[in-house]
Structures are given as C-alpha cells and as structure tokens.
C-alpha cells in the first residue's frame, strides 16, 4: 500500500512538472516545435543554414544587428581600406568573413566536434568540443584555432591564432594577429539559430565589440560547388588589385 502511494505521488508530480517543462520551453522557443537534440542530449545544430549577408559588421541589416561605430585603434585606422583582399584573390576569406558571405553553411555535429562547411570557397572549419584547450605554439592561421564548449543549449566557440592576411568583413575592417573571436550558437527553435560574435583585438580595437545575427534553417537546400579560381577575371583581367 505504501509502495502504491509513492508511485501515485511520483505520477502526480510528473503530471504537474511535464506540462510546466513544456511551457518553459515554449516560452523561450517561439516556434511550436521543440529543438532537435543529439543522443547525448546536447542541442543539435546540424543542418543547412542561411546566415545573413554581413558586408559591414558595424551596421544593422536583415537578420543582423551591427556593433555600431567601431572603436578603431590608430593601427586599425592605418590599415582601413587596405588594398589587399584575400578573398578577391581566391585565398581564404578569413574566419569571420567566411560566415559573413551571402552563401549558406552546413553544420555537422558530433559529440567531440562541430564542423562548419561553407559554400563560400567550399571551405570547412573544425571546432573541437572534446575538452581540449587551444593548440600550443600555433603558427598564424588563416581561420585560427577553435575550441568549443557547451553551456546548456548554447555552444560557445573560442578562436585564436590568426595571421594578419585577412579582414573581418567585405568592407575591409582590419584585424591583427591578436584577434580573439568569441561566438555563441544557440538553437532557439526548430528552424533558427541565435548567433553572436564578439571581436577582441587590442591591437586593432580599443574595446571588444559584438555583432548579433539569426540563422534560418533551409531544409531543402544543399551546399553547392564553388570553385573560386575557375574564372576570377576581376583579378586576372586587372579590374581590382
């Protein structure tokens, strides 16, 4: 009799808590559908996503909130409008600019890593989520070295180890080899990711600044081929330097 009453209590508690839990999720997720989850319980970021095109990380645009006027250092002011443009020459576009482009990305998630495939230039980036720290004695890299950690349903990505051969956005906002990028990816519902990126670079900016975006799931899209060297006549015909 006593055992029955305990189970009755558990059942009663569950009856109260399960709807509360559902209500709490609905409160944070405007869409009616719940967010997909991995077998390990982590939010699943997998899918083909359309990020907004961010030509200028300081300005607002469709599905993105700019940082406002950027706090350039004298070094950055001297490098604004640098004629070098790695992406125009089919070299790697750089970590932030790869995601700024008007092309979709695909996110592949495993328990130990999250991989981003970019249609832009058909490049990829690996974010280790297995608890390792940043690689030691990094050579300066085009896209840096990324480690990620989960905080609830939010993936925080920390990236360092950059060279100075790229710019942050199409407009040409510069960065130095001291660039430290902190990003958050949070799947807010079945079809959206809330994303933010914070730029820390004491050589180029007097304080950190942030850009906020929304990615939209495109379930019927696949990434397509992009071969930059195929016919880059803007450069080969000398339209740009």
């Amino acid at each position, binding site marked *: 009799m006593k055992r029955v009453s305990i189970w009755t209590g558990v059942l009663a508690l569950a009856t109260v808590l399960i709807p509360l839990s559902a209500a709490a999720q609905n409160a944070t997720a405007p869409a009616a559908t719940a967010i997909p989850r991995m077998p390990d319980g982590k939010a699943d970021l997998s899918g083909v996503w359309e990020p907004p095109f961010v030509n200028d990380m300081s300005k607002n645009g469709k599905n993105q909130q700019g940082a406002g006027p950027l706090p350039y250092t004298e070094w950055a002011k001297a490098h604004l409008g640098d004629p070098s443009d790695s992406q125009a020459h089919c070299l790697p576009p750089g970590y932030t600019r790869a995601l700024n482009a008007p092309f979709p990305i695909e996110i592949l998630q495993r328990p130990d890593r999250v991989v981003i495939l970019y249609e832009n230039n058909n490049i990829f980036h690996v974010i280790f989520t297995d608890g390792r720290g940043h690689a030691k004695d990094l050579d300066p890299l085009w896209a840096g070295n990324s480690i990620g950690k989960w905080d609830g349903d939010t993936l925080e990505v920390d990236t360092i180890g950059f060279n100075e051969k790229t710019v942050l956005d*199409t407009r*040409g906002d510069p960065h130095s080899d001291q660039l430290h990028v902190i990003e958050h990816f949070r799947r807010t519902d079945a079809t959206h990711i809330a994303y933010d990126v914070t730029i820390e670079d004491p050589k180029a900016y007097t304080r950190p600044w942030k850009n906020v975006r929304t990615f939209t799931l495109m379930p019927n899209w696949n990434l*397509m081929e992009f071969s930059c060297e195929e016919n880059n006549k803007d450069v080969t015909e000398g339209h740009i330097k």
Partner: protein
Amino acid sequence: MKFTWAIWAGLALAALPALGHHSFASEFDTTKPITVTGAITKVEWTNPHTWFYVEGKDETGKQTTWSFEGAAPSLLIRRGIIKTTLKVGDSVVIEGFRAKDASTVSSSTFVTFPDGKKLRIGVVGGPSDE
C-alpha cells in the same frame, strides 16, 4: 510578381551594394548606373561570378560589347535562374553599376526580357543584398 520586383527595386536603391566575393567599392560606382539594350553574345556560368556579355547601346547611345558581372551560379540557381535562362541571342535590357575606371565592365542588377519578365541576376539589390 510586379509588386515583388517593386520591393526589390526599392531595396536596390536603399541598400549599400556589396559583393559577396570582393569589395563592391573597390571596382564599381553606385553613382554610375548603366542600362544597356541589346543582345546577349556570351554567358560565362562560372565562379566566383557569372558574366553576361551584351552587344548593344547604353543610355548615351554608345554601341559596344558590354560585360556584366553577376552573382555566383549557386546563388542564381537558388533564385530559379539556370545556365540556359539567359541565352546567346536573347534580346535584353540589362541594368547595373559601372566600373570606376569607366571601362565597359559593370556589376549587374537586373535583366529584362521583351515579354517583360525581369530577373535579378546581380549580387546587389536583393532582399538580403547579396
């Protein structure tokens, strides 16, 4: 359909154009729009940009072969524009922005066919300002 294009045209005027691949301002000038009426002589369905060549006259009456840079094939395909949508010999009115160097190179925005069908082929002026 017309309403949709009106919205896009409005956005084209309102938005600061930019190319995904390279800086728009490094090559083109938004204060120098161009409209060419003529026939397509060549289509390059390539990355990082498509290119459309049109033999015809600009608004000043200058006759030559003009080249117009378009969006990457994948971006056009997602808008329903495929390799054979613009064909050699097609009569078109093509719009865009001229190169800063006053050459015959331009960045395209829209192409209009004789039946009035208008397509956004450029990397600028769209809903997300591609």
